[in-house]
Structure formats: C-alpha cells, structure tokens
C-alpha cells in the first residue's frame, strides 16, 4: 500500500492546488473577512529575473586581473556633472535611498546619516520633509520633492546637497503614498500640516505639473530657486524605462534614479508591489540604452535601485552601465530589521524574523519603522550607524574584489562584456550572452 504521509503527517494522496495553494486560500479568506486590500511594507516577494541570474567573467589568459589588496580599484563617483555648480562627490557608488521620516523613526534616520557619512556617501529624505537630525547627521543629503510636498520648504531646499524630483517608485509606479494613522505622531502631523491620527494619503501626481514639458519648467524653477548650484535628480519607478529616461534627460535632469519593481516601500498595497513595473535587471539595460542613444551615458548619471543586497549586485549593476546604486530594504536589515534576536517579539505580533513586512503598522519591535517613542527608544542610532557603515564597506569591498578579478582599476570600468547570463530570460533582459554561448536572445531585433 502507498498510503504514507509527509513530514507533517499529511497523507500523500492529498494534493494541494498550484493555483489555489494555502497562501492564496489564506489571502482570499482574509479579504473576505476584512473587506480591504492588504497593505504592507518590504518589496516584491515573488521571484523575478535578477542580478543572481548573471555571472561575472573573471580574468584569465585573455585578460589579466589586478592584484587584490595591492593594486588600487577606485570607487568614487561624481553625480550631477551636467548642469549643477556643485556636483555630489561620493566615495563609494552606493547611496541610501529616500525613506521618509514618518515611515522610519527619527533615530533610524539618524543612523542612516551617521553610517553613510562615515563612508562618504549620501542619504535621502522622503515623503515627509527634512528633519534637523537628518540634516545634522548626513554630510551629503538629497532632498526629495514628492507629489505630496509634505514639509517642502525653500530653506531645506537650499540646505540640501541635491534635489530629487520623485515621479515614481518601483514598488508602486503610478501610485500615491499612504501613512496610516497610527504612525502619525504629533511631530509627523506638524511636519505634514495635517491633523494627528488620520490616515494620510499622498497624491500620485505632482500638484503643479503634468508631463515632460512641464517637468522641464519645474526643474528650471528649482534651479532658479537654488541658483543652479544643486544637482537635480529625477526618480522613476521602472515601467516604460527607455522612454521615461529619455524624457527625464530632455527635461534637464542631472541624474536619473531608476527603481525596479522589487524596490522596497513602507506601505503599499500588496497587489501593487507584486504586479506593477518591470524588474531592476531589464530596467538598467533600458535606462543605459536610452542614455547611450542620447549620447548622455556617464554625462547624466544613472542610479539604480530595487533589490540590491550584496557587492555582487552592485558590481553587476555597474557593469550593466549604472553609475551608482541605492539601497532601502537592505539598509533597514543591516540596522537590525528582521533579526532573529527579536523572534519572540515578532511572534507576539503574528510575524516571524525573516518574514516581517508590516512596516506600515508602526509596531516594529526593533524601533525602525515606527513613530512610537518607546519602540523608537530601543534603537541605538550610534550602533545602527556603525552597522550601516560596516555593511556599506562590505558591499564596497565585495564590488572591488569582483572588479579587480575582472582587471578593473575602477569599479565603473566594469562593462557588459564582463557578464554572462545563467538563464535565457536574464540574457534577453540584460542583453548579455547566455553563459557558454554567444546568444543574446532578441539582440537581432532592434528596440
């Protein structure tokens, strides 16, 4: 007889549906119970083609490598060389992405500033304005201009080292923001000119411009207000990336930020996170194509984000043509988010270390994604800052190791020619050959 059972004692003859698996069943029943869609933090959880599907070709007989630890492999990058009087000089090509005060606690924002400043890179404000702590602890701070314009003010604009016009975000291209009432403390309410405790909606479109022609005029105004000093970034969620990048360049951007669909968020509908936008991998390729076609590659710098975790991800993004990357989720994890240390606390709120994504809820036991003073007080910004600095150093060392192995004296010298793909999908999207072949699916077809 074949009536055995699996490790959970479930008889083998029970068959779970592929379409209606237990997670799908649980979600249907949750929706039926609560009558509202699931809002959560984190990025897409489904598997999509990513940098893991690429490999670097180290040097051998036909190329020679650099001597590890002896021969220099530089990592500095300058952003905003096109129009700005004072471009941003970063010591490493890894920046901290925009995350709002409101979504994150004040000590968490401080830690990001401390860590980034220690290794010579920038942090970014978010949908909620600039706090003095953040400005104080970030040597280089990028100030976001978002559709909500919460806290927007010309003094902060002048205090910033660069300005980022946010058109969209990879987690929700075409979507607005949301900060649920339980995260609206007095301070957050005050900064955003809204009553305390209400669910705050952020608009999905800018209030005073629509379309690329207006964007050009808007960028012109920001330059006039700041006397043409500051680099102006334009951030887009990855969708029609080729066209969006070209339009942003034509509108006068100094730097383009492209955020792939895996990009993290503090609070977005799950259906949005998982189903809108294209992965980071094809987005880099399309952005570089757009820049090259305009003869603007390396003149307008490209920052890529969405799922950057390791120095390998950094090296591969740069090899595909990015000038820098930025990180959100990984930075929170580096500061202790989802750490097994907090397993018991996660269990109390119905989650588990490694699964926690309720960054919208404000009950973060680690004190990062909360506005609760007691929870936030658990988080030590100095320790958090050290961890961010350590993590950024490791990413940099890893990227350098890989670049040296490919014979590069600067990480920005990595190139598509150093890459091969493990899957046909990745080969087609990144437009590098499938490993062991000279086949780039789709390459014969022009864009």
């Amino acid at each position, binding site marked *: 007889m074949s009536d055995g059972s699996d490790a959970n004692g479930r008889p083998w003859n029970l068959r779970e549906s592929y379409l209606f698996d237990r997670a799908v069943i649980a979600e249907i029943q949750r929706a039926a119970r609560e009558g509202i869609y699931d809002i959560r933090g984190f990025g897409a959880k489904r598997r999509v083609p990513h940098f893991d599907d690429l490999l670097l070709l180290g040097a051998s007989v036909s190329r020679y490598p650099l001597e590890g630890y002896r021969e220099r492999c530089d990592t500095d990058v300058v952003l905003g060389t096109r129009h700005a009087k004072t471009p941003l000089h970063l010591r490493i090509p890894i920046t901290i992405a925009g995350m709002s005060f409101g979504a994150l606690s004040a000590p968490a924002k401080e830690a990001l500033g401390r860590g980034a400043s220690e290794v010579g890179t920038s942090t970014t404000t978010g949908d909620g304005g600039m706090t003095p702590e953040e400005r104080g602890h970030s040597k280089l701070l990028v100030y976001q201009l978002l559709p909500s314009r919460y806290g927007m003010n010309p003094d902060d604009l002048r205090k910033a080292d660069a300005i980022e016009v946010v058109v969209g975000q990879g987690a929700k291209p075409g979507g607005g923001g949301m900060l649920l009432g339980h995260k609206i403390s007095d301070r957050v309410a005050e900064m955003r000119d809204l009553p305390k405790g209400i669910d705050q909606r952020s608009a999905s479109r800018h*209030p005073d411009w629509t379309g690329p022609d207006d964007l050009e005029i808007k960028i012109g105004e920001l330059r006039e207000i700041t006397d043409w000093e500051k680099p102006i970034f334009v951030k887009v969620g990855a969708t029609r990336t080729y066209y969006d990048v070209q339009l942003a360049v034509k509108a006068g951007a100094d730097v383009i930020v492209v955020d792939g669909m895996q990009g993290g968020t503090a609070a977005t509908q799950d259906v949005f996170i998982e189903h809108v936008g294209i992965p980071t991998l094809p987005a880099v390729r399309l952005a570089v194509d757009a820049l090259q076609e305009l003869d603007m590659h390396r003149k307008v710098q490209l920052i890529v984000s969405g799922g950057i975790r390791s120095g390998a991800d950094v090296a591969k993004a740069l090899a595909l043509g990015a000038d820098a990357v930025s990180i959100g989720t990984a930075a929170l994890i580096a500061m202790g988010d989802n750490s097994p240390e907090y397993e018991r606390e996660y269990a109390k709120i119905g989650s588990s270390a490694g699964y926690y994504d309720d960054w919208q809820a404000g009950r973060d036991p680690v004190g990062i994604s909360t506005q609760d003073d007691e929870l936030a007080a658990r988080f030590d910004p100095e320790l958090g800052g050290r961890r961010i600095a350590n993590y950024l150093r490791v990413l940099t060392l890893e990227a350098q190791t890989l670049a040296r192995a490919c014979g590069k004296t600067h990480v920005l010298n990595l190139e598509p020619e150093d890459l091969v793909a493990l899957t046909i999908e990745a080969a087609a999207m990144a437009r590098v050959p499938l490993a062991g072949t000279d086949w780039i699916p789709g390459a014969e077809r022009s864009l």
Partner: protein
Amino acid sequence: MTANAPEATAVEVVDLAVTPLRELNGRLHELARDGAGPRHWRVVNPNGAHAVACGLDAELEVEIEGHVGYYCAGMNKLATVRVHGNAGPGLAENIMSGRVLVDGSASQYAGATGRGGLIVVQGDASSRCGISMKGVDIVVRGSVGHMSAFMAQRGRLVVCGDAGEALGDSLYEAHLYVAGEVAGLGADCVEKPMRDEHVEELRGLLADAGVDDVDPASFRRYGSARQLYTFKVDNAAAY
C-alpha cells in the same frame, strides 16, 4: 541702473529683454543673504518668462510689468511680488510667507501647496487653484476652475465669483468661502454653516486682501466632512 542709490527710495529696474533671468533671481537672492541693497524692484519685459522672482527670502517689493509664465514667485518668503498682468500655471507654488498679487488672471494650480502668506488674484484663477494648500490664504476676486482646493490641508481659499466642479475634493482642514455658484462639491466636501466667527474671519481676510466691495456675510462656507480621514471599506466608492 541705480544699484548704489539710497535704498529706501531707489527702484532697481531690471529689463528681462536684456538681463538673463538667472541674473535677476540671483541678485534678488543675494539680498536675502547680504541684507543690503535695493528693496524695491521693477521687472520690465517679462514676456511670459517662467520662474520670475522665485525663491525670494527678504522683505522686498517686486513689481512685474507684464505677463509671467509658470511658477512666478514660487516658494516665496517675506517678499511682496505684484504682477501687473496675467500669471501662468503654479503661481506662488509652495509660498511660505509674504504676498503675491496679480492684477489679471492666474492659470492652473495657483498657490499649489502654499504653506503661508497671501495670494490675491484680481481676475479669475483656473483649475486646481489652491491644490494641496497647507496654510496659505488665497483670495480670488473672480472665479476658480474645477478641482480647486483638491486635498487642501490648511489655510483659506476665498472665491468672490463662482467655483467649478469638484470643489474641495478630498479636503482636509482648509476653509473654503465662495460668494457665487458652486458647480459641484468633491468627495468629502460639504457646506457648513456660516457662523459669526466665520464672517469675522472672512472680513479680516478680505480687508487684508484690499477687497472692500463685497459683503462677507454673502459667502457660503465649505469644509471637510472628515469621512475619508480613516480608510474604511464602506467608503470605497469615494476613493
């Protein structure tokens, strides 16, 4: 040019037909940093230029003789900017303080996201006047277009003429006063009783804006029903 003339009376004239915009704005900004220099400026031949007199941060009087394009007096602080003509989209967007006065009409998004100060438009303002306003006061002698005061958070919008469709859609705590017809109210915007305190508030605003020929008691008041303040599934149709 009268750059070194006695400050109180001197009027610095800048001709945008010959002076680059960047130079004009740069000089106006320098006054905030240095504190010295002429306080009264006349800008001639604006010819619809964008971003004229934006980012000011000092107690200046700037008179603009003609029409301006987008974002005139954007993010203004402290200064008084007068446009003797019409203004394009985004007039005084994100104004913090000071005054922006337009003799003619203003295009869409006048006073968008403004956080303080006063805007007075003698003619009409177009659609989305006061969109997402966060504390600014806006007084329009004529009418405003559709979706005005969309998501307006704080501050006061006074319309002496009519208001277009969907006034105050998704309104937060801004106060809206309209003397004429309202074509339609947006989601969560309702008419509220005009009590004495509101008549007084309006009287003060009108006086401040130099409007003395309309009766504050003839206005209707609109505000938020506050039904969309927390996300409830029963309101799904309104979102």
